């Protein structure tokens, strides 16, 4: 097993764990965190390919990850704001109850 494959497997596993968290837990914050984990798994892939795979431009992977981190930060900010709005609305964070479109 080459290092690249190891990294990719790690990333796949991390992604799955994130997915499981997002799917199984009902708390909206945790779902959001699961999604962040999935994003991290993707970032891991970028770095893995950048490090262990020839052919890419020297800094592309790094740049990609930096952008992804920044976007993740934005996403988290908006997501958590949504969480707070959700909480204000239904006084709990159970995502399965947040099914109504009307306010």
């Amino acid at each position, binding site marked *: 097993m080459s290092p690249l494959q190891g990294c990719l497997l790690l990333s796949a596993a991390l992604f799955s764990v994130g997915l499981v968290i997002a*799917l199984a837990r009902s708390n909206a*914050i945790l779902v959001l965190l699961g999604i*962040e984990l999935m994003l991290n798994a993707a970032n891991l892939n970028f770095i893995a390919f*950048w490090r262990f795979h020839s052919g890419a431009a020297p800094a592309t992977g790094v*740049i990609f990850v930096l952008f992804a981190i920044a*976007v993740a930060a934005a996403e988290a900010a908006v997501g*958590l704001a949504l969480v707070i709005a959700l909480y204000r609305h239904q006084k709990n*964070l159970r995502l399965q109850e947040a099914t109504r479109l009307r306010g």
Partner: protein
Amino acid sequence: MTFTFLILAVIILGSALAAALRPNLIHCALLLVVSWLGVAGFYLWAGAEFVAFAQVLVYVGALSMVVLFAVLLTRQSRAELRVDAPETRRAVWAVIAGVAVSGVIGAAVFATKWDPAPVTAPEVTVRGIGLELMGAHAAALLLLGVLLTAALLGAVVLAAPDRPEKEEKS
């Protein structure tokens, strides 16, 4: 396949899995922070220092704080921090989906013939990253700035109370 990598993998996956199972929300959040730190360690191991520190700065320094804040703001008593255990049916489905996804990706990873890895890590200096960001990716960087501003404003708007507070008499 080094020892360091294995340790890191254990930290990352272990804390993530623990987070998936713990009932206490604060613990979950802190465990995920550990997982993120592990990812930062992975970046360091892979030679991407800058990304590693950025990861720490953003995830550990900022995101975790926001998450913890959100946790503290969205509870009425300490007891609420113990969140419900997952419903069995959904949990089973979740595990099935997770296993299927990792299985598929794993299969794809093994099914693909990879080129041999380069011996040395590509040389990337901070200056290089900076020049790249301001040069080839300048437009993306600008857009990102706009995105972050928009997200910030959006977050403020979303989180702000619906009704305006009464004007304070000062």
